[in-house]
């Protein structure tokens, strides 16, 4: 008999990956130019974690998925219209910035408090999912600090696969250096899993799932309380846009080896 889980996915929104970003100095520190005008998506790392959570919940009857998110309410609402058709979940929204210029410990504290406030939360069933990394924040520390604040000691980062054994124990594939995976096992929930990309494809849009999710999404957005994420005590020494070089070339009938050689020579400037 499968174990029902309470799976909480932590995930914020980031600008659509195809947008051109420009850091600017704002009154409250660094910010993205025209951030509120940029279309947004759910952070791709959290996106995978959400699909893994939905997949796990589907195979464990009685399970439930929450998505806990700190983001500007209006933008989060718009992103939900794309995400909500993908997987069943209940939203827990916190109104705050999502520019990436936040401090991991502050964000983790707010997320942990939001998780603790979920009614009927049972630590014995709790799995906290999130992105190992973020498309806008590269510290990689947020999930770990959330786990510490929730008192969860079984933590796994860079997860690509989770398998639930018949006895309810969890087998987890974590990415380690050298392109290898480390296999870990733990007795079961509670655990924190910071997902890499996982193995699941994007699920198709399901309008019925969307309709069902909307029953809780809009009230959650209306309830969303403002979060103080001022990055106090943090000093941003410099913020720059990564330099980029562009080159477009159309090739046909070229072998992968030749393409690889050409890319290497282009990168190295030879």
């Amino acid at each position, binding site marked *: 008999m499968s174990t029902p889980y309470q799976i909480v996915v932590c995930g914020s929104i980031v600008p659509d990956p195809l947008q051109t970003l420009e850091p600017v100095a704002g009154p409250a520190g660094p910010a993205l130019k025209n951030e509120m005008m940029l279309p947004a998506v759910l952070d791709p790392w959290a996106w995978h974690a959400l699909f893994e959570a939905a997949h796990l919940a589907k195979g464990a009857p009685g399970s439930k998925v929450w998505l806990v998110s700190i983001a500007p309410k209006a933008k989060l609402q718009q992103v939900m*219209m794309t995400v909500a058709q993908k997987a069943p979940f209940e939203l827990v929204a916190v109104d705050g910035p999502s520019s990436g210029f936040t401090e991991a410990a502050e964000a983790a504290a707010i997320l942990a408090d939001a998780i603790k406030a979920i009614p009927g939360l049972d630590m014995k069933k709790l799995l906290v999912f999130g992105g190992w990394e973020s498309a806008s924040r590269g510290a990689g520390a947020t999930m770990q600090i959330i786990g510490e604040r929730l008192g969860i000691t079984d933590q796994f980062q860079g997860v690509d696969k989770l398998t639930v054994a018949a006895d309810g124990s969890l087998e987890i594939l974590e990415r380690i250096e050298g392109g290898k995976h480390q296999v870990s096992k733990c007795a079961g929930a509670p655990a924190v899993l910071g997902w890499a990309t996982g193995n699941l494809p994007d699920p198709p849009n399901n309008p019925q799932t969307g309709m069902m999710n909307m029953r809780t999404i*809009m009230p959650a957005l209306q309830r969303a309380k403002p979060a103080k994420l001022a990055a106090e005590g943090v000093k941003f020494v410099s913020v720059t846009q990564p330099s980029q070089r562009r080159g477009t070339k*159309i090739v046909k009938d070229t072998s992968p080896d030749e393409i690889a050689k050409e890319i290497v020579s282009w990168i190295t400037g030879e």
Partner: protein
Amino acid sequence: MPSCFAGLEKEIGLKRLLESGPERRLHLRPPRMTTTVPCDNAFSMTAPNTEPQQPAVERQRMDVDIVCVGFGPANAGFLTTLARQLNNPDGTPRFESAVAPGMPTRVICYERADDIGFGVSGVVTRARAIRATFPDFKPDQVPMCAPVKDEKVLYLLDPIGASRRSATLRFGDAVIRALKWMLPVEREALDLPCIPPFLSKHNGLLFSLGQFNQWVGQQLMAGGAVQVWPSTPVAEPIIENESVAGVRLLDQGADKRGEPVAGFMPGMDIRAALTVVGDGPVGGVGSQLDHHFGLPPGNHARDWAVGMKMVVNLREDCELKPGMVYHTFGYPEPEIFGFLYVYPDRVASLGIFVPSWFDSPVRTSYRYLQHWILHPYLWRHLEGATLRSWGAKTLQESGRRGEPWLAGNGYARIGEGSGSTNVLTGSGVDEAWQTGVLLAEGVVELLKEKKPFTRENLEAAYVKRRRANWVDVENCIAEKSRDGFQRGVVTGLIGMFLAGISKGKLAAPGKPLRPHERLPRLEDYYRGKIPAGEIAKIRAECAAKGTSAHAALMERAGWPAIPYDGKLLVSQQDALLMGGKVRAPAGYADHVVFLYPHLCEQCGTKLCIEVCSGQAITPSPGGSVPAFDREKCIHCGACLWNCAQPLPGSPDRTNIEFRAGTGGLHSAEN
């Protein structure tokens, strides 16, 4: 003679209403969903590229009260107006859902693009309807919005000598140049001393429709009365017993031809008492309704344009002020109109319209846009600017003459695809919005009276409202205003002027033609400029490289090469990536389909390749049917009406079918 006066039109409108039933039956076409050969049954040729046979799959079904197709200005106006009426002042539902008794009315809108702000265009508008809906609207509520402060109409002379100008125009140009000491001529442009009142957008607004859509959508969704779902293309209407019973969503987990692959999920059937079709001029659902029910007698949509635009950051010392609007004509070809308007923070929106009556078999929007940017009058402002967004869309330029049946059993048409664009004033967004408002008012009336959404009831509640509204009254004035362009630019301009000052009582005559009736062969178009043998050689070389031929042909005909600066003047592929940010999610069928391969084989112009805004249609290696790359398509729909091959048995249709599809532009600034 004018086409219609207000009073006469009312009479015609009523006559249409009275006669619409039997006439509709005369215009029936087999629906795409139930036929494999998309032409008259009398034509027996097989069509290998039509839809694959639909496997007998079990489809999920969801019932709602009202389903809307497309979240453009029309459905935004419809949903905004309707949502305000669905609840009582105390917040309780005003109407009960027929499909979920005890629950509020279920209203859902499906949008094809990946977000509600994607794939739309900018606008300069009088904003009468939008301001009526939002009486307290302030431009600073929406990013990239500004009041119109100043307008200029500019006639651009040809500084290069490469454009194709008639003798009349050449004479006019010579006179302007000779008298430039006494005329307002500056940098090869004549600043017209006054703007005809029908063209003026005085006291209007200019804004990014992408940003405006986001603003409206956020308010709608926060209200909770209606739902808008992006990234959800609608494949087709569900037609039963000549009534529309809802829509079918696009299959997911399919290959290019629509065949099921891993993760196949058949498109769900969304059943609704009312289907509101506002999917634009090339929308899949609207097109299929047109094919099935035909257009009212005498109506046809043969005039089109592709509008291509850029949003740019102007250089620091640029003198253009927010609210400045330029309308241009005369260059790079006399038939091409241009626009430039300036938002706050040194951001500008600029672009051109390439109309279907510009009889060039190499009418490329992108290349012409670059030449337009480089015109000396504009380049002084644009030099040093940086591209931040780019896109294109088809405009239905037939206006009221392209109007389909506005209502039928279970459905209503609104917006540009319903013929609402005013072709005299060059205004479409505000008109589209107003048609949505009018439908919403009619729907509320029917809900109050508990009347079903039958053709008769919708005609009484919606069509009658529309006929009496300024949208229709002004469109009657505009109906023949552009006919003169069929005979040339000068005749067209005179016709517009006459129609404008006479309120539609006068217009220059002209008969809109289908593409195959008017497009010259390349050899004829370039006669006297490029020998036929050289044209063949250039085309063969370009085909071997898998590229379109317009750049090589234009340069051979005298157009200079574009001096790429990597910022504003970039290759078309770079514009896709830097400005359009184009994407196409996997798992969906191709939405551009060449129906009969043999027609492509015998096509001499291959205009679909030349005109493609994203270079998504290219010569096929080793074949005559062009190749289509969905990952480059920006869904402008230009291929649909630029195809020079008529569909056998349906000459108003072409050999290209433009179906519902996902992806496209990922910029919300257009």
